[in-house]
């Protein structure tokens, strides 16, 4: 599905782009080597510049030389997406909805729909994990997790 050459070139270009961003950020500081040694931007400027340079070189080399074989089959891509997309949604929901509600939904979805487990195991996981996390982290280890409207309404926080 995705040829290795495109992926290699793309990643190297991304790295080069990151290097350029670092370089731009470094330019807002003193990039010189004064009497008292290098300024705040001295190392970031060179790190960014070198990264942009090496990334470009790598991109050129890969575009010319890397194999065109598939890096990622359709099945593998689907499996990775099925795991990653719900996780990313969970991560995005956490600051707004709190840790617990998205956690239960996420676990239910992953176990029942993605993992094709039975309802019993899926529900047990989804309903038991959040209270277990609450007891372990909040009451016992005293580390607060994210809180949302549900926790607010229940007066848990």
């Amino acid at each position, binding site marked *: 599905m995705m040829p290795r050459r495109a992926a290699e070139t793309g990643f190297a270009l991304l790295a080069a782009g990151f290097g350029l961003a670092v370089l731009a*950020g470094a330019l807002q500081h003193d990039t010189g080597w004064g*009497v008292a040694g*290098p300024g705040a931007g001295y190392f970031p400027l060179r790190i960014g510049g070198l990264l942009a340079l090496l990334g470009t070189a790598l991109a050129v080399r890969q575009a010319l030389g890397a194999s065109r074989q598939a890096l*990622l089959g359709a099945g593998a891509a689907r499996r990775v997406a099925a795991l*990653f997309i719900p996780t990313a949604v969970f991560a995005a929901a956490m600051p707004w909805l709190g840790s617990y509600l998205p956690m239960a939904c996420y676990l239910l979805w992953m176990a029942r729909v993605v*993992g094709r487990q039975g309802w019993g195991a899926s529900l047990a996981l989804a309903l038991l994990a959040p209270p277990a996390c609450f007891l372990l982290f909040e009451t016992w280890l005293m*580390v607060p997790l994210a809180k949302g409207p549900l926790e607010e309404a229940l007066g848990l926080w």
Partner: protein
Amino acid sequence: MVNDLGALLHGFEVALTLHHIVLMFAGVLIGILVGVLPGLGAPNGVALLLPLTFAMEPVSAIILLSSMYWGALFGGSTTSILFNIPGEPSSVATTFDGHPMARQGRAAEALSTAFLSAGFGALVGVVVVTLIANQIATFALRFSPAEYFAVYFLAFAAFIGMGGTDPLKTAVSLLIGLALASVGMDTVSGEMRLTFGTDVLVKGISFLVAVIGLFGIGELLATVDEGLHADAVDARLGLRDVWRTLLGMPRHWVALLRSTAIGVWMGITPGGPTAASFMAYGVARRVSRNRAKFGQGEPEGVVAPEAADHSAGVAALLPMLALGVPGSATAAVMMGGLMIWGLQPGPMLFQERPDFVWGLIASIYVANIVALVTVLSTIPLFAGIMRLPFALLSPLILTICLTGAWMVSGSGFDVALACGFGLLGYAMKKLDYPIAPLVLAMVLGDKAEDAFRQSMLMSQGALSIFWANALVASLMALALFFLALPLLQRLFSRRIPA
């Protein structure tokens, strides 16, 4: 010397009371728990236990807290090996060979190798500390920023610069890590760097969040990519494997001794456990006959970082007491505790409160044995977790990863960042970019830069400060030797056939 031994015996009398042994067990168990959970670590455990200690005798309090620390060091290795998630920064290097071993069905061997090496490192570390406790203080005082820089440079040089990977890709990985390390406030100028006008980057990019993403999430993505690895980790983890591994440990005696020496050295000097474990791994890979097998499940790749990590952890506690300088975040919280208990860490503590200092040193011996026994007996427990179907285990692990990323500083941005690092780790794995240089650069990059620029301030810009005395010059020479080693080896091996 003789006086010290007498003091140590007295310390054992303090440490071996029932009350203190119970405290050690409690501390070790809590430590294993916070060590196993990514995002939480020994500092959380100390913060949790600190309020309890206000009512205790100082020596009981420090025994509880230090036992918790040893437990956390052990717990951190467990998740590194089983799930490729380093529970503690210092167990990152354990993932390199520990997790491949677990994937080959040798989880029990990997875990017992790790625990036994760690136990060995801790015990040798404490013996060394016992012998030279009084000399440590004066030695660590010789470290100015130039020596700090040389130590960091040495750790880099020992780890980087060889291996089967593409040198261009290694360089890119290293540079990304260095760039990430410089985000946030710059100590020397007080300016905010690379924050691009955002508020979320002001505190810098957390190393823990990066590791959770790169290793934990990235590894799971790579696993489902390969498919059919649902139960690749052998669930059979029995106590018999532990016994067999114990009998096999003497084979690794060279690696054990060398790594422990590196660990003790890095603990006494300000390098710290994380740098020590990377350095020991790098050195082990360079000098090993099985060089090609490193990264694919070589037991020596577990022995080296674990022995170094623990001996450094033990050795780092002494400078904290003798100088009042914490070598790690954990030591810093303990030091705050000392002050609240009414003790003043510093050169006089050894003279004024020998009962406290030697009680602590004796407790390190006992608590590490307690921790080793406890953690070996948890192996069957982890076997239970590993028997869960992958479809239930993987979302649980990801939940713990994201929760851990939240707990690092209670920020939603960090959770998103962990996901981003997960993708980065997955891509790097697929495209054969080594991740370790990035991680090492994030740990040491900004510290090395600070030390370099502080040195330049102190020498008014003269680079000669890096060979101004025997100590810094020999550190720099050793680092340069390590950098040149691959070249030398190539020259050498070409000449032999000719």
